[in-house]
C-alpha cells in the first residue's frame, strides 16, 4: 500500500514539473488598474495572483501595494477565475484562513466599479480591476503578461 501511495505522490510531482501550463493572462472583459504613482506598467500572471493573495506586498520600486477587490458581480467573478484561479467562495475562504490564523486582514472591498476607480486613483500604491468598458482615465492600466 505504501508503494502505491508514493507512486501517487511521484505522479503528482511529475505532473507538476512536466506540465507547466501557462497562467491564463488574457485581459478578457476585465482591466487591471493601478494608481498613477505606481511605476510598474506590467505584471506577470503569477505576480498579479500573488498580489491579490496578499503574498506580494511591495511594488518593484519598494512602495507598499494596496489591493482592492469588488464585493461581487461579473467583473469580480471573471477576475478571480482568470487571474487568481479561484471561485468567489474559495477566495473568501482563503482570506478568512488568513484572518483567523492572524496572518492577514480582509482585503479592501468596494461595492462597485465607480468606487473602485475612485479608490485606486486616490490611494498611493493601489491596484484593482474593473470591467473593460469602465472609464479609466483617472488611473493607469496594467498589462498582464
Amino acid at each position, binding site marked *: 500500500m505504501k508503494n502505491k501511495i508514493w507512486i501517487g505522490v511521484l505522479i503528482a510531482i511529475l505532473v507538476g514539473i512536466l506540465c507547466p501550463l501557462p497562467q491564463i493572462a488574457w485581459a478578457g472583459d476585465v482591466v487591471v488598474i493601478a494608481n498613477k504613482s505606481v511605476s510598474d506598467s506590467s505584471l506577470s500572471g503569477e505576480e498579479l495572483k500573488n498580489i491579490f493573495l496578499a503574498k506580494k506586498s511591495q511594488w518593484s520600486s519598494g512602495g507598499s501595494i494596496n489591493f482592492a477587490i469588488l464585493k461581487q458581480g461579473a467583473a469580480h467573478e471573471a477576475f478571480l477565475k482568470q487571474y487568481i484561479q479561484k471561485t468567489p467562495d474559495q477566495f473568501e*475562504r482563503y482570506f478568512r484562513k488568513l484572518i483567523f490564523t*492572524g496572518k492577514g486582514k480582509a482585503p479592501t472591498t468596494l461595492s462597485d466599479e465607480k468606487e473602485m476607480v475612485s479608490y485606486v486613483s486616490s490611494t498611493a500604491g493601489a491596484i484593482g480591476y474593473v470591467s473593460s468598458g469602465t472609464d479609466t482615465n483617472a488611473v493607469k492600466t496594467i498589462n498582464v503578461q
Partner: protein
Amino acid sequence: MKKAILTMMTTAFFCFGLMGHARAMDGPGGVDIHGFIAQGFLISSEYNYLSHKSTDGSFEYNEMGINFSKDLTDKLRLGIQFFARDIGDAANNKVTLDWAYGDYRWRDWLGIRAGRIKLPLGLYNETRDYDFLRTSIVLPQCNYSDMLRDTLLAANGLSLYGNAIPLFGAGDLDYQVVMGALYADLDSGIEKYSNSALQGAGEIAGAVVYDTLYVGKIRWNTPLSGLALTADILKVRGKVPMLLLGNSVTMDSDIQHIRSGIEFTWEDLVLVFEYNYLDAENTTTLDANQMMLGEPAKLESETYYWGASYRFTDWFEVGAYYGVNYPDKNDKDGNDQPALGQPKHNAWQKDIALSLRFDIVQGWIFKLEGHKVNGTAEVLSVDNPDKSEEDWYYGAAKLTFSF
C-alpha cells in the same frame, strides 16, 4: 478573567447573530474583530466516540473563538485569539489562548513572528478550529485527532516565514519554520487519549512539557494551475510524568512526524491527499532511582486519507473522504493485538465519511455528516472497555456562525 472572556465572546456572537452581520467588527482604535461559535451534535453506534456519551447522542460538542488584530505599520501586525471548546468530558469550554503573536514582514520572502504561533502541520492544522472553512464537520481523525487538537495546535516561540518565492518558471514556494516549546493542557484531551493508550497499565501523572520543538514546512504552488504540494516535519522532545503499575516514572519522548500533502483545485472541485509518518522513541525511567525500564520503546505510525469536495451552488456543497490509521505500522494485520488483550481490528481504523454543507445565509452554516468505520484504533478504551465490534457508525450535525 476567563469567565469575563467567555461572557464577552458569547455576548458578541449573540449580538452579531441577531443583527445578521457576517463581516468584521471594527473595534476601537482600528482593531479588527472576528469570531465564530459552533454547536454540534454527535451520535454513534457501538462506541462512544469523540464524546464520552455519543452512543446516547451528545451535544457536548461545541467551540467558539474571538480574535483581535491590528496593523501597526505596513510591516508590523499584532493579533490575539481566545478559544474555548467542549468535546465530551474533555476541554469543557475552558478558555485558552489559541494564538497571540507579533508579525514583522520585512520582505515577502522573509518575515518573523514571535509569541504563541499555530503549528503549520499538514493542510489543515492551522485552520482546524474553523469548520466554516471546510466541508466536513470532523476532520479525518487519522491525521487530525480531536483529542490531541489543543496539544498540537500551537507552540510558544519564534517563526520565520516567506511567501511566493519564485522558482523560475516552476511555480513558487511558501515556507515556514517554527521553533519553541509546547505545553500540553491535560484537560484538553491528551490525558484521556494517553491513558487509553496505556490500557490500564498506567496514567499521566503531571504536566506534559515538550521543551524543544521544531517545525519546518514548505508549500510548492506548482505551475499546473490549482495544484499545490506540501511537506512538513515536526521534531519534538519532552518529558511525560506517569504512574506505571503504581510507580512514579518519567517517559522521555522523542518524536519525529513527517507529513506530505497534495491539494488540487479545479473550479468548484477540490481534491486532497495527505500522508503521515510518525516515528517515536520513548525511554522510561523510575523516578526513585533513575533506573531505565527496559530498552527504549520505538513506535512507527502511518496514516493517510483521500478527500474530495464539490460546491454545487452558492449554498450547497458535498464532501467525502476515506481515512486510514495504522497506529503501529509494523502490525497492520493486528497479529500483536490479542497479546495486548485487544481484538485484531484494534490495529487499524478505516473511516468513510460523507458531508453535506448548507450555507443558509451569510455567516450561518449548517452541516450534516455520516461515517462508516471499520476498526477501533482511535476508539478510546477509557470510554469503551469492550471493543469487540469491528464495524460501526457515527454521525454529526453542526450549526456555525462566524463574522
